[in-house]
């Protein structure tokens, strides 16, 4: 589950060989150590003007190597889903307009899976009954639109952080239903805050090495990829592991604990950025 790395004028196979040689020398392309995380920077758009277009929140995610995602949350009233009449609705759409068109079908599949992953993880951490206005009749319909402007690996984690920062402390405004009833303001809150990272597995000379927070070049050469999402109590919110390299149980446990020990730094970076900025 990776978008192809942007290698510029360098051939992709030569780039992969270069990355493999660096990893054999225990180096990474951007000079990080194997267990370092790229710190995210999340900007919020708190201007009042944008809220007149039903835009409830707008965030921009960047990190040090140039991954850039924009997230816009819009909300309207709508009927609740028939299977769950006491819950609201949440839809996630991911688009990537700036990628080359030769792998369009593959990118579409990747983005669909990414949207599904982000939605299911947010539903695990957010109580959708907070979006219910009248049980069985009216609810908030939140639409999260993620635009991938530049991707450098770890796309699941970046998309999840962007959407979580936008939805945390989201203020649902005071509004009027078509029937004339007035709905009061409500603040959306996560009952657990997810942080995610992609962990790459490299089997060099029979020894397993874990790369925390891989970039696109490392994802193209890694033997296995693991996406782990944890919360404050070190519980596993989501776990996705599909790769050519089967892992033994202790290796998987070590990979999860590698993220758990560094999740506090990531969570503080996301929560610090998501507090309302005084302008």
């Amino acid at each position, binding site marked *: 589950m990776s978008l192809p790395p942007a290698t510029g004028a360098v051939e992709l196979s030569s780039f992969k060989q270069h990355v493999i040689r660096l990893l054999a020398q225990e180096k990474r392309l951007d000079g990080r150590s194997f267990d370092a995380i790229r710190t995210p920077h999340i900007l919020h758009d708190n201007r009042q003007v944008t809220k007149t277009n039903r835009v409830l929140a707008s965030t921009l995610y960047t990190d040090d190597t140039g991954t850039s995602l924009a997230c816009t949350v819009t909300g309207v009233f709508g009927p609740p889903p028939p299977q769950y009449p006491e819950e609201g609705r949440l839809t996630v759409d991911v688009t990537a307009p700036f990628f080359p068109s030769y792998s369009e079908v593959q990118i579409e*599949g990747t983005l669909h899976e990414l949207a599904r992953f982000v939605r299911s993880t947010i539903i695990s951490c957010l109580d*959708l009954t907070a979006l219910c206005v009248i049980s069985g009749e009216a609810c908030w319909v939140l639409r999260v639109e993620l635009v991938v402007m530049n991707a450098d690996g770890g796309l699941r984690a970046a998309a999840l952080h962007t959407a979580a920062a936008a939805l945390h402390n989201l203020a649902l405004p005071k509004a009027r239903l078509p029937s004339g009833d007035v709905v009061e303001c409500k603040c959306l809150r996560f009952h657990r805050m997810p942080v995610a990272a992609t962990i790459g597995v490299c089997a060099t000379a029979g020894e397993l090495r874990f790369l925390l927070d891989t970039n696109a070049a490392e994802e193209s050469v890694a033997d296995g990829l693991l996406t782990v999402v944890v919360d404050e109590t070190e*519980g596993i919110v989501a*776990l996705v592991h599909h*790769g050519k390299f*089967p892992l033994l149980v202790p290796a998987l*446990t070590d990979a999860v604990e590698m993220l758990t020990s560094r999740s506090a730094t990531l969570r503080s970076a996301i929560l610090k950025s998501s507090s309302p900025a005084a302008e």
Partner: protein
Amino acid sequence: MLQRCAFQTIASPALTQREVEFTKSAWLAGLRPDQRGAQQLREVKVEFPLLSRDVACVRCGGTIVTAAIACELVEPSPYRPKQGMLEFSVRQPYTERDSGAKSRELKTLTAFLERLIKTGGVVDTESLCMLPGRRVWSVSVDITVLNDEGNVTDVVVWATVAVLLHYRRPELTIRGNSVIVHPPHEREPVPLSVHHVPLPFSFVVTMDPSDRNRLSRQHKDNKELLEVVVDPTVAEATAAASSVVVAVNAEGQVCSVSKSEGCCIHLNELNYCMETAALLAPRVLSLIREAMAAHDVRRQEALQGQFLWVQKRSGVGRDVAVPETTKKARVET
């Protein structure tokens, strides 16, 4: 709040709520609604219903899935001229109880199959290449879910794995630019190159850890609460708080872990899931191997029966049984 672990909705909301309450009461008492153990699968049957090797049928309790495979020589993709194609499609007949989200769930199941078998490197796609850039094998697997009583994800992959292991593609002879496809009676067909066999197992976590702690303080019995159960039925999947799918191969290595919705799980529960899957995978794989061997025996018997019939029909070896009138007539002439 009902979780979304179940694929389909039971007949009416009142019955759903009643089943959910009964299932949760059974879990509190340390039992399952159908009296299975926590690590016990339903009865699994693997069979190959036709004489040909390209259809497999797997039953797990009331869940029935058939997988059919076909291959064809096609021109490869220009970006990957040395790799064959592997395609999956999952279908299920609709009933009036199915919701509109059924097609989305089947697409999710197809994506899971592609990630597990195609991306996981189960079938060597480079061995499907015959002439680089011109002729490769395109293998397509069509899976039909005939009945759904929970745990469709596992049974779909078991059926796919069984049909990939058992299938034989035709032998080819390549001379220069010409490709000769030999029918099965000329040359023996060739099995597909399968690297490893991932077998997934679905687990559901019965309740939230905080709820479990509170309930264990209320009920101070000696009975233990069921925490993680394998092979959930529809009622159990609806009542559960979370679900995990773990795929292991025959050597006990974890090929895939997928935990998406519901409450959090902890590392000890995840380790329990992976160890239970490592215990159950050799059993399911031995069932598949036994079904393959039984099918080979059945094919041999059918072939011998056909050969005996041909012998009887054409009169081979019947010289001593020539009627006397015919012999007498021949002597007279």
